[in-house]
């Protein structure tokens, strides 16, 4: 069982603003042009995520889950609607302000890990700190210890298993002490045992106060969340709190 230590719990708690939603979407719409055709990736999606909440976003392929995650992470801007992060409107921000917001408040975890193959485990975790100009090797080592990767600091990603790579990616996502952790199919490329270890890690992180939004098809991970948002054809069709999915009910791929 991997648990986060006390000092990290305090740091994360300090960065949370009481009484403010971690993220709030109001009528979020995202369209793309495909030739002469306009494709609606998201249509009028509204919801909010409370500080310290852990939600999963589910739905069939093409439902707009990843698009929504990218909007929440300021990687993209909505065509219309409003997005607030920590009470701050994100729509009207410039590219550099969005980058700063992403750097300071958001951590990303990808299905394909997104580790740079030429860098060691430690260097991959320290990568975001180069861009934030706040390099702390000590914090990177501490995070790697917390995710159980302290013994692999100088290894290259191609020397690691999938589960190990995802743990490194999670440590990297945490290096700038984000208040919102976004994960896109974090267990999608992992075997069951590794997937369960990652889910345990997410739960442990959430217990420290960090807000987590995960796009997933994994039932166990969905069950671990406080709440489930279901998307279909770009629309939010259900928003259930404390939902526990049963294997029979399943989640559409």
């Amino acid at each position, binding site marked *: 069982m991997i648990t986060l230590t006390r000092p990290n719990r305090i740091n994360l708690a300090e960065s949370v603003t009481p009484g403010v939603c971690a993220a709030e979407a109001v009528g979020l719409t995202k369209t793309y042009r495909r030739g002469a055709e306009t494709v609606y990736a998201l249509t009028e999606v509204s919801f909010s995520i409370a500080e310290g909440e852990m939600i999963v976003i589910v739905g069939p392929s093409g439902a707009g889950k990843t698009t929504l995650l990218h909007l929440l992470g300021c990687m993209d801007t909505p065509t219309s609607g409003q997005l607030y992060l920590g009470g701050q409107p994100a729509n009207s921000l410039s590219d550099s302000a969005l980058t700063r917001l992403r750097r300071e408040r958001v951590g990303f975890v990808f299905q394909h890990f997104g580790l740079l193959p*030429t860098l060691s485990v430690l260097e991959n975790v320290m990568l975001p700190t180069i861009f934030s100009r706040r390099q702390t090797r000590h914090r990177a080592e501490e995070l790697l210890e917390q995710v159980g990767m302290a013994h692999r600091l100088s290894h290259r990603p191609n020397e690691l298993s999938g589960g190990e790579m995802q743990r490194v990616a999670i440590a*990297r996502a945490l290096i700038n002490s984000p208040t919102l952790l976004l994960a896109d199919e974090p267990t999608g490329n992992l075997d069951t045992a590794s997937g369960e270890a990652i889910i345990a890690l997410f739960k442990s992180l959430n217990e420290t106060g960090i807000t987590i939004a995960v796009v997933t098809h994994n039932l166990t991970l969905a069950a671990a969340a406080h709440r489930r948002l279901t998307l279909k054809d770009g629309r939010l069709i259900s928003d259930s709190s404390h939902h526990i999915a049963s294997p029979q009910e399943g989640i559409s791929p």
Partner: protein
Amino acid sequence: MNWISLTISNAKRRLIRTLVTVGGVAVAVASLCSLLAFERGYERGMHGELDRLGAHILVVPKGCPYDAASIALHGASWPCYLKSAYLQRVQSAQGVETAAPLLMNALYDSSGGQVTYLGAEPGLLRVKRSWHIQGAFPSAICDCLLGSSVAAKRGLKVGATFDLPGFTGERGKVCGVLGETQGADDTFIYMPLAAAQKLFKRPGQLTHILVRLSDPNAVESVVSDLRGCDAGMDMNVVPMAHLFRTIQGLLNSTRLLLGCIAAVALLIAGAGVSNTILMSVTERTREIGVMRAVGASRGDIFLLTWLETVLICALGGLGGLLLAAVASSAVEAWMRERLPFAPTGTLVHFDASNLAGCLAAALILGTIAGLLPAWRAAHLSPIEAMRTGSVGI
């Protein structure tokens, strides 16, 4: 980890491709560096050669003055001669401090090497003021003053007698050995003018006259005086400053051609670097997306890509300087064969400003070549970058 180590790790990813690109820059920088070093070396060499000659004006027989100047500077047999009587006229010209008559002839010795004899009078020492002689200037008929390399090569010291190379049965006595001059004088054998005229069967004849003026600024008036006199019809009066400028002018077309080659090489190298980095950006599109996701700004991505270009060009620049230094002797031999006139001594001369200039050129090249790939990388949409390109681990 820092920006530089991140840049190096990116450059090392496709090591062979990076090295080939670095090699292209190195060749371009080496050609530029060699060209500049040749310019500098040639100019220095010419100045040194003319300084060693010690004369402001060279008086030679009618014909091509540049051929004559080349023979006078490097030593060879002359195709035509001046009458000794012209010396009086030259000596008497207003502003002439010293006029030193010389008779030069070159022979092949038994070993197949060339030996150059110069008949001269003691007045030559007033022209060759930088000379240091161990012993004395030739005065007796068989006296010889040996250039330093002649003395060293033949193992002769002051007081020794020896067979005059290239002659049969003629002997000379070493009355003095010339200190090293770093010029053609080191390879000459000086003897009294009368002895040389007798030995080479050229009584009353000279090959050239070295003229030193009391006021070097009065060259034009002395030259016009000498060209206007009766003897002026049979002799070429060549101001050394004009000779220097004319020889430099003769090289202009060569310099222009080499300059164009260096410029084209630099342009091609720049395009090569730009192309390499563009390919690298395309290959790393997804990684760029990941970096944007973890907090890299457009400026960060621009800087990272641009630093990689500058790194390649800086390495290429350093490699180019090394290549130019290693190839300098080959370049020198190649140039010497093709030049109408080449001074003695080093033709390719590197100095700090030359090297710094070439390195700066490489860095400027990298800066410019990196702009397009860096701009493209920086303006990749993070979402598009995440969706496309090769997958990181």
